[in-house]
């Protein structure tokens, strides 16, 4: 076994101390103030963009006919994809008994929740008449009409809302024991009350632990297929149509891989600085980075394969429109974006073959940034280049994001990080209870006798 998963000297008290300190006694360090401040400004930009949007209509964006979908859908897919890494880490790795997930899963889950929140706003905002969004939900109305269940957009509603709910339950169930710890460590009366209420009277009784574990494992077992299904359905949002470049059976798996790919990139983008700022090297070690990088390498290769097959199928189908679409990607109006995407997702990812890269936080951080951008570009390419020149040459036209498109996008990034900063400030970033368990049962663990 290469690098250790945690610092040998770590014990129960140490874990509690390290993790619980920032929320309780950390105060507001400068890096937090600055980071949160920037995120907050972006969040205000978001509110401005949304207000203008609701006042004037989606026409303020660059969308048109033929390209009736733009940033809203791109960002939706991007965010939801990012969320998936969280579930992947906390659920699938748990089921595979990958202990290394322990120190990062809390973080990853929080990231999932916030990413889903960001993703969730776009389908609503992109509606022509957002105030009627609830017509997509099955509720008994005076019109006696119901949603049209053949539409992948309805599947989306169910998938995303289920995903959001389950992620929240899963996260909270895991958080419960730690909230109790916070409650018991808190000195300030109001802090005690707040954490105490949140902990719902958790006592750490063996009967609690038993059922909590059972429920936790079940939720993990459900979340695992769920995360696959969600992004498969997002893939179907496109694949169900007959737009050249969308109508492709490879989309679901290829989308799922892409999601995990981008998700891990985002985890690294966040974890690497946090680990430094909060001195968590003891719990988030080089080994974690190494392993996450390996996952990225794998999913990255799957995605690359996806690109390859898209090209092949376009040629093999013999369908004129499909071929035009592919040629457009390679050499059309959006070719720069396409090649940038290849550079980020395929070329940059190959550096992960080298341990030197995987274990050097700074380098890894840069690579993960590239991949984040690359995955956004991928969705951009899929949405725009497929639509802008489809079947009837007479209707061909281009699309370019304008100020309001960008404002909304950057705005959600603000929303995401604002939430993340609040999380880091007020909640334990690492699951203490699971860390303790890990410490007890690993070779080198303190209480191992």
């Amino acid at each position, binding site marked *: 076994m290469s690098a250790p998963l945690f610092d040998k000297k770590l014990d129960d008290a140490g874990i509690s101390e390290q993790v619980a300190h920032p929320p309780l006694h950390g105060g507001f360090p400068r890096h937090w103030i600055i980071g949160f401040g920037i995120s907050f400004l972006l969040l205000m930009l978001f509110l401005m963009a949304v207000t203008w949007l609701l006042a004037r209509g989606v026409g303020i964006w660059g969308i048109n006919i033929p390209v009736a979908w733009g940033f809203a859908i791109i960002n939706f897919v991007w965010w939801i994809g990012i969320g998936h890494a969280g579930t992947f880490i906390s659920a699938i790795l748990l089921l595979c008994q990958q202990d290394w997930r322990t120190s990062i899963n809390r973080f990853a889950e929080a990231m999932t929740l916030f990413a889903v929140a960001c993703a969730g706003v776009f389908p609503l905002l992109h509606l022509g008449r957002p105030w009627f969004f609830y017509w997509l939900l099955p509720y008994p109305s005076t019109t006696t009409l119901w949603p049209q*269940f*053949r539409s992948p957009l309805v599947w989306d509603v169910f998938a995303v809302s289920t995903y959001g709910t389950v992620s929240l339950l899963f996260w909270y*169930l895991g958080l419960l024991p730690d909230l109790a710890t916070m409650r018991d460590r808190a000195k300030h009366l109001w802090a005690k009350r707040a954490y105490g209420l949140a902990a719902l*009277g958790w*006592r750490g009784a063996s009967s609690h*632990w038993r059922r909590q574990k059972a429920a936790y494992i079940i939720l993990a077992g*459900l*979340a695992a297929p769920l995360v696959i299904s969600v992004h498969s359905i997002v893939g179907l949002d496109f694949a169900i149509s007959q737009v050249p470049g969308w109508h492709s059976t490879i989309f679901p798996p290829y989308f799922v891989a892409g999601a995990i790919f981008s998700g891990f990139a985002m985890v690294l983008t966040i974890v690497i600085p946090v680990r430094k700022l909060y001195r968590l090297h003891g719990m988030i070690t080089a080994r974690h980075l190494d392993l996450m990088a390996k996952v990225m390498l794998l999913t990255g290769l799957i995605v690359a394969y996806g690109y390859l097959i898209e090209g092949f199928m376009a040629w093999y189908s013999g369908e004129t429109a499909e071929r035009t679409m592919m040629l457009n990607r390679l050499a059309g109006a959006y070719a720069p974006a396409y090649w940038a995407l290849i550079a980020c997702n395929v070329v940059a990812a190959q550096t992960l073959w080298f341990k030197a890269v995987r274990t050097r936080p700074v380098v890894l951080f840069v690579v993960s940034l590239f991949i984040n951008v690359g995955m956004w570009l991928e969705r951009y390419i899929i949405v725009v280049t497929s639509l802008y020149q489809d079947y009837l040459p007479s209707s061909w036209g281009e699309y370019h994001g304008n100020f309001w498109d960008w404002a909304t996008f950057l705005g959600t990034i603000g929303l995401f990080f604002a939430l993340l900063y609040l999380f880091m400030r007020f909640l334990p970033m690492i699951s203490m209870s699971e860390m303790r368990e890990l410490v007890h049962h690993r070779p080198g663990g303190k*209480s191992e006798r």
Partner: protein
Amino acid sequence: MSERRASSLYALAAEFASPGALIEGTRAMAGLGLRRMEAYTPTEIEGLDDVLPEASDHRVGWIAFGGGVAGAVIGFGFQMWVNMMAYPMNVGGRPFFSWPAFLPVTFEMAVLCASLSAFLAFFVLCRLPRLNHPFFESALAERASQDRYILLVEADDPRFKATEVGDGLREAGALSVEEVRV
């Protein structure tokens, strides 16, 4: 009245330094034939359930399963009802009963219901939320969520004798034993 209640002994609480010690202590108490005990720990202790009496419970799993099945049935049934009975419409010339198109929603419904029932089952079975448990009266409670391993032997156990239990716990290696009164 309140005098009497304040004075009434609820249980004896013993604190142990490590999971191992806790298990020892529990085994000892079980040896005395005591049944009404509960361990309070900062993390789940493997092997504890083997020594704690009446410790197995698989209901959460079954409830979740039931929820899942119900969700699937409701999900699929509802779509059938909408498309074939409530408001049949010619949508793109597709059959009213387009079952493959109904599967995604069915699946999501199953997962949603299963998860919710598992989550709720946990709380209901644990009688949570409850903020006023007698255990919180104990001075040891605070560290039970951090680095101490507490065993609580309840006074209303028929075999319970305060002195005997107290000594037993100390022999088993409890760092300290204290009375929990409510």
